[in-house]
């Protein structure tokens, strides 16, 4: 398995795996940013949730998801 072709193939597979991982991570990041931008826009239109409401939701989420 030390044939130069195999070494090259392994190198290319590692590169593609990393590239796929980075693409997926970038996609998730951009998607998250788009949703947060939409929420900012709706907050500007209707008024942001109060800090009390956000604290209530965070406490509820902590009970439900354990974090």
């Amino acid at each position, binding site marked *: 398995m030390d044939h130069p072709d195999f070494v090259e193939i392994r190198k290319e597979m590692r590169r593609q795996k990393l590239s796929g991982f980075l693409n997926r991570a970038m996609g998730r990041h951009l998607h998250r940013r788009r949703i947060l931008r939409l*929420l900012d826009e709706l907050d500007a239109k209707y008024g942001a*949730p109060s800090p009390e409401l*956000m604290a209530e*939701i965070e406490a509820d989420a902590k009970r439900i998801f354990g974090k």
Partner: protein
Amino acid sequence: MPTFADHVVLDSGGLSALLGSSARARGWLRWCKTSAGTVVVPVSVLVETVTGHSGRDAETNRVLRVLTRSGRISPVDEDLGRLAGKLRYRARADDGIDALVAAEAVRTLQPCVLLTSDPGDLTTLLTDHPQVTVRPV
């Protein structure tokens, strides 16, 4: 089977609340996205939210495009249909759309929050699934 971590499912009332003035709906979505969670819109929700009229649907479509850019409109497949049927039968319920939304929330077997404007019927459908928490918005 999807394995979304920390997911928030919207039914049609939840989506309408988000399009309207519900600070609670926006608060839950903000929590979800800042916690790297996933927003799931079951495809059955479209039945109750779009009209086929591009003008009337413009705002709904715009929000759906943002929410589902990474393909999180969950399609109905046979497994989901069968799970929905089971939930509907056990709850002696009539509403197939609600049953499909409930099934979407149940199918990952992970903790999940289901946002709705009408928690009564969904809570009944989900009686045997304490990992799903129904929250009114």
